[in-house]
């Protein structure tokens, strides 16, 4: 067989081979995992705000997640398990998102040069999504480590003690705006990426940033409430 015939056969075989379905799956899982994390974050911050009602409300929420009202006694390991599941989801989301990041110095320099030159809001927002995503690797790790290893210390008094005496307020004060910026940018991108719900970017932006801002205020208020309670406890 001539060399050119062999090449033609190889080309035909390559052409007939169906393309891997994995890229579609990865793209969909990246969005679904992001959506799940955003929904979790929304619920988490709302429940954190129970401290604004009072310490007993915060304790009631903590005990509810430990299965107190389901099994009659509290089982903090349920919280550990849930946190481990959440960590798995975060890892899946992060690994999938890493595919999109610059992979080499050449790509990094090319993107930074492009970013500076084009002066485009949505391109800049993506970069902030990357920066906050990278920061979250380090900020979420200590937060989840505490939840996984010390689930029994979640409650009004113990959490307030952690916030003030163990100076966890520093971590939470940084984590809150960073995670909200990442979640808001991710939600915005997911809507424009899939084209659903059908909203123009001009109409979408106030919704996304308005909700993120409201959550930031709520989260900061809860942090202040825990700090006040923690200060009272140390006195």
């Amino acid at each position, binding site marked *: 067989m001539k060399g050119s015939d062999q090449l033609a056969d190889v080309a035909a075989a390559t052409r007939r081979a169906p393309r891997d379905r994995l*890229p579609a799956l990865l793209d969909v899982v990246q969005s679904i995992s992001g959506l799940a994390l955003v929904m979790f974050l929304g619920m988490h911050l709302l429940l954190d705000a129970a401290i604004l009602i009072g310490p007993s409300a915060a304790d009631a929420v903590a005990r509810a997640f430990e299965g107190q009202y389901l099994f009659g006694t509290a089982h903090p390991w349920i919280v550990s398990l849930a946190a481990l599941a959440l960590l798995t989801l975060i890892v899946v989301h992060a690994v999938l998102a890493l595919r999109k990041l610059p992979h080499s110095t050449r790509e990094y320099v090319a993107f930074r040069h492009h970013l500076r030159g*084009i002066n485009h809001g949505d391109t800049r927002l993506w970069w902030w999504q990357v920066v906050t995503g990278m920061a979250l690797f380090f900020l979420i790790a200590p937060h989840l480590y505490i939840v996984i290893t010390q689930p029994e210390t979640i409650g009004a008094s113990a959490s307030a003690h952690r916030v003030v005496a163990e100076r966890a307020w520093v971590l939470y004060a940084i984590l809150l705006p960073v995670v909200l910026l990442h979640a808001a940018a991710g939600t915005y991108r997911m809507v424009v990426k899939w084209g659903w719900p059908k909203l123009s970017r001009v109409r979408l932006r106030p919704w996304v940033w308005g909700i993120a801002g409201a959550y930031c205020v709520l989260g900061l208020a809860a942090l202040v409430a825990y700090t006040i309670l923690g200060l009272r406890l140390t006195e």
Partner: protein
Amino acid sequence: MTDQTAHRKLSFRILRYNPQENGSTPRLQRYELEEADGMTLFIALNEIREQQDPSLQFDFVCRAGICGSCGMMINGRPGLACRTLTRNLPPEITLAPLPIFELIGDLSVNTGRWMRDLGERLETWVHMKAGELDLGHIEETMDPDLAEQIYLLDRCIECGCCVAACGTARMREDFVGAVGLSKIARFRLDPRDARTDADYYELIGDDDGVFGCMSLLACHDVCPKNLPLKTQIAFLRRKIAAVGIK
């Protein structure tokens, strides 16, 4: 009191580099010009070339935003020189060639080769069923609304602005860009094309295709023809993803 009708003095900083010339190194060259009423960058560049520097290279054909030849980076943003009024720019204007494409010299790039490679790779022509081509047969009529939708996407002039504005394309040279995706969207609409979504998945169902798009949407924002790239790419992503996860 200042004269409100006085024309501004425009200062152009133009990237000069001729890769064909031995010893040529990239540099920014400054030109000054008095602004005229209704002046476009195309007019300004011609004036510079005629009166100050005949060696300045840039492309143009139609002067009306139809041929897509005069795409360039205008103060860091891709745009057509013939469609850009100097009055909408600050007095200091920096011009550079579109990145990604092969540089011919100064502001002139070879978008044609890139677009041709893209067309061959994505098979951007109507694929009729085998044996269907009958030149003696009268072509099927097309619904006017559908024809209008196809025409809307066919308005792409392949100027390369969307590619130059794309952060993904700047990082990954194999990414097909909004121009590639909008072409697939165009053939997908065409009832004469026998290809299915599964066939299109073979062409754009990976990270060099629709799944590589990070929805930065600068393509949509700079398109001189105002093509609905955001909507088309999102629609295509839904359809192609559906094939992949079936």
